[in-house]
């Protein structure tokens, strides 16, 4: 399947990463071959079949709506970020 440059750029945008020009060329080829392969599902007729999204035997596993003790403390979690200020995670300016 022929994949256009615009498609690659659109998918990169949806995926939230930038793609360089050289990367775009190899992605065009790789994604084209992958799409070609998965398109073989066109061969079979499944119009009367119900879809399956998960194979767990139960649905809607509920628990009581209460705060459970957490394994990690706020300090431990904040320590994982690159930059913090006033006990919060710091990121570049948004506005």
């Amino acid at each position, binding site marked *: 399947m022929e994949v256009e440059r615009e*498609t*690659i750029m659109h*998918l*990169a945008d*949806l*995926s*939230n*990463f*930038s*793609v360089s020009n050289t*990367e775009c060329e*190899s*992605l065009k080829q*790789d*994604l084209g*071959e*992958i*799409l*070609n*392969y*998965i*398109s*073989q*599902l*066109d*061969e*079979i007729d*499944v119009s009367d*079949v*119900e*879809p*399956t*999204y*998960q*194979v*767990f*035997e139960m649905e809607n*596993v509920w*628990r009581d709506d209460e705060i459970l003790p957490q*394994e*990690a*403390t706020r300090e*431990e*979690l904040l*320590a*994982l*970020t*690159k930059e913090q200020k006033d006990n919060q*995670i710091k*990121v*570049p*300016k*948004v506005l």
Partner: protein
Amino acid sequence: MRIANKTITATRLVKDALDKAHEFKDYNIFTFLNEEGALKKAAEIDAKIAAGEKVGKLAGVPFAIKDNFLAPFGETTASAHILEGFNSPITATAVAKLLAEDAILIGRTNLDAFAHGSSTENSYFGPTLNSHDRERVAGGSSGGSAVAVALDIVEFATGTDTGGSIRQPASFNDVYGLKPTYGCISRYGVVAMASSTDCIGFFTKSLEDMDLLMSIASGKDSKDLTTLDDYYNNSEVAKAEKVGIIKDFDNDSVAPEIRAALKSKCELLKSKGYEIIELEMPALKYALAAYYIIVPAEITSNLSRYDGVRYGFRSDKSTGLNELYANTRDEGFMPENKRRIMIGNFVLSSGFYDAYFLKAAKVRTLIIKEYEEAFSKCDFLLTPVAPNPAFKLGEKANDPVAMYLEDMMSVSLNLAGVPGLAIPAGKTASGLPIGLQLVGPRRSDKDLIEFAKVLKEDK
């Protein structure tokens, strides 16, 4: 496995393991070695044993975890640059259960970044070498764990299997590898890849070890609402009579020596009084295509959390927030991670959803039905794990579809949620391990382990 007691100390076991880890350093098996911590823990266990105190079932047993299990021992990297510096404060339930039985963590093992791959070549830290031929791949994605067990560095190792990532490297390295029934072992604290197919399992050198580990690790976990009640320890082993082989896999796309190994195991079973039946499972032909639609779709969702903000690597080239996300993800993901995220976004896009994702979900139903039907005719299925033995390093690295084809016979189990046990089944003429997988209905994990004993040649 060797368990510490008054004659063999935990310190001895741990020192042996660490010595071997150093001896085989150039295989690139470990992303982190827990040297100080392991020796300290060993001394504690030895003191308990000396004092006559009770110790766990895995006292002093050296083990390794695939580097996508969270635990406060070194960084959890999933062999991906984007998790650099991630020192998890929490411990995966599966790891906690092993530690509670006094097993000793030796290190973290290499994988394809985020478990995306079938060779461990997609790792940010470079490939792991095959235990039997250093010019060949370890298999993947749990390549490091398989080789750590095969080279006898540790007694066992954990792995994850989303489409074959335990069974295929097990078969490439001559060890046992089990992908349990979906929902058997808690996934709390394990880096998610595809939530509807991800399973936790083990690599071992014996079936007895596999049974012991399953009895420890399985069961319901309040932290993972997709876990089943503990059926493993309440299973009665059923008597098997019939073993099925899948006709659709018996063709030229499978290496002749693997087909011969399967045939020889069938002869062995016949000689022991079991009936072999041939089955047709035509939908399995489409399992790989369905898998490479469903799994990337789930990957797209699960990997959206890596943004450089809360943990892990953050690109320092950015002036704005959106740029920070894009640059971090661009620099932090491996090419295969990007391909899968993009394919996932493609098959979920409006205009393509019905043709790809919905269709794959329907094919999944057909596959589940075929397995159900198969297990109404036989007790287990015996099939190859992969179409070829371990391939050369670099051979398929630049051809994503060729790499995907390696998963042809392993992915359908994950789509159906049924368990599969990879067993060693001899070697090729050039000495490469051959593996076969024993497949059973949901919750038949214990039966598989028990029946695999029948498949061992009598010595």
